[in-house]
């Protein structure tokens, strides 16, 4: 319980700090819209094409945007050596990690919920047909991104090439989660009948989250204690 309480305090602190400066929110939001626009210029988005890879396109936007958010998770603690204060506080490494991942999740999920109607307008997609399922899949995929991203952000926070290293390490690890998220989003976005392997993809996504959340919580102490 103490761990979760500490995590909630860390998450609230990160969110408060972000909502005051709006540094990541503004840059990530505008970045996402720009990518959505660029994709529309890159190919003529016909309904058939969107039915085929709309989910993939959306997740590429989210994954790129996610890198900006998770990169800031620990980097925002670097000025004034705030990271050392956090690490030496009574909060355990696991609660620090969970708090930061929860804050990144809230920010990313919020941005995704704003991007979804923008995507619908720009690409003429009736995205609200399976809204509940879609929000559920977005939540699962976003947690995977927040969890793995924040963990690897802790690994790379002190590197000079942090901005390059983070996506290079995060994206390959994330593929097992992004692949099912893309497939599921595609089905839910276009209102196609559920394919027979729908549950396999869903289980893969959920299993990934369980596996990597457990690993990250277990290893967070090792990474954060210097």
């Amino acid at each position: 319980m103490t761990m979760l309480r500490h995590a909630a305090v860390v998450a609230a602190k990160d969110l408060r700090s972000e909502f005051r400066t709006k540094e990541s929110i503004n840059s990530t939001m505008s970045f996402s819209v720009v990518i959505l626009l660029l994709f529309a210029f890159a190919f003529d988005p016909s309904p058939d094409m969107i039915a085929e890879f709309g989910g993939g396109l959306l997740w590429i936007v989210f994954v790129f945007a996610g890198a900006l958010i998770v990169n800031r998770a620990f980097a925002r603690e670097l000025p004034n050596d705030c990271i050392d204060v956090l690490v030496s506080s009574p909060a355990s490494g696991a609660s620090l990690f969970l708090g930061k991942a929860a804050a990144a999740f809230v920010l990313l999920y919020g941005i995704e919920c704003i991007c979804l109607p923008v995507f619908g307008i720009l690409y003429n997609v009736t995205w609200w047909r399976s809204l509940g399922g879609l929000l559920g899949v977005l939540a699962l995929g976003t947690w995977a991104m927040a969890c793995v991203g924040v963990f690897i952000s802790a690994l790379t926070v002190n590197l000079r090439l942090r901005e390059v290293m983070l996506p290079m390490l995060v994206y390959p690890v994330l593929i097992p989660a992004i692949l099912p998220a893309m497939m599921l989003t595609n089905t839910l976005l276009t209102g196609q009948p559920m394919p027979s392997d729908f549950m396999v993809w869903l289980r893969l996504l959920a299993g990934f989250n369980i596996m990597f959340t457990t690993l990250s919580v277990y290893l967070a102490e090792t990474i954060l204690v210097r």
Partner: protein
Amino acid sequence: MRRKVILALGAVALPLLLRNLYVIMFLVPDEMEQGPIYRIFYYHLPAFFTAALCYLTAMVTSILYLAKKDPKYDAIAVSATETGLAFAAVNLITGMIWGRISWGIWWAWDPRLTWALICWIMYFGYLMLRSAIDDPTERAKNSAVLSIFASASVAVTWKAIEWWRTQHPGPVLSIRTGGVQKIDPMMEQMLYVNTIALVLLAVIFVLVRLRQEEVQREIDALRRYAHAMN
């Protein structure tokens, strides 16, 4: 002592590899549908097994490093990862050559191929991370953690063969098909023998690389000492 072990392993591995090459090229029968190109399979699959074994070694030694903080385990982990990457590259390249002949394309976005490539990129990222961290303790700790993360993904790669049905040939070894003999017993036996030869070769590579790593650490320690004295 280690030098003698390397020489002894080499004395076993080299004749075995030459003997296997002879048997693969001249003695084992052609595959009914694929013809002679299937022979690449004797290097493709054993290279995957060897790479997987190296990744597994890296994972175990990374866990041991985190538990015991002994730099020896970190040195074994990096040596095994580098060797694993080399064998994984052999696996990917031989697969691509086979694909070009059998499917007419160098690369198919088949889940198993994709996963093998992802694993390769992930372990390459491990080496990149190592090269980006100057402090030896921090480097060993962070890369050990990343290696454990990567090995979780390798486990998914291994299971992927059962999760997806794709154009990639299915399992043929009797240990994977529940005892059902899908290929000629001589072919299967040859696969195991060549796996042993490649594993021996991998052990030699790891031992040589381990020695390099230890020498590098000694040089770094001397440099730090000299720097402190100045």
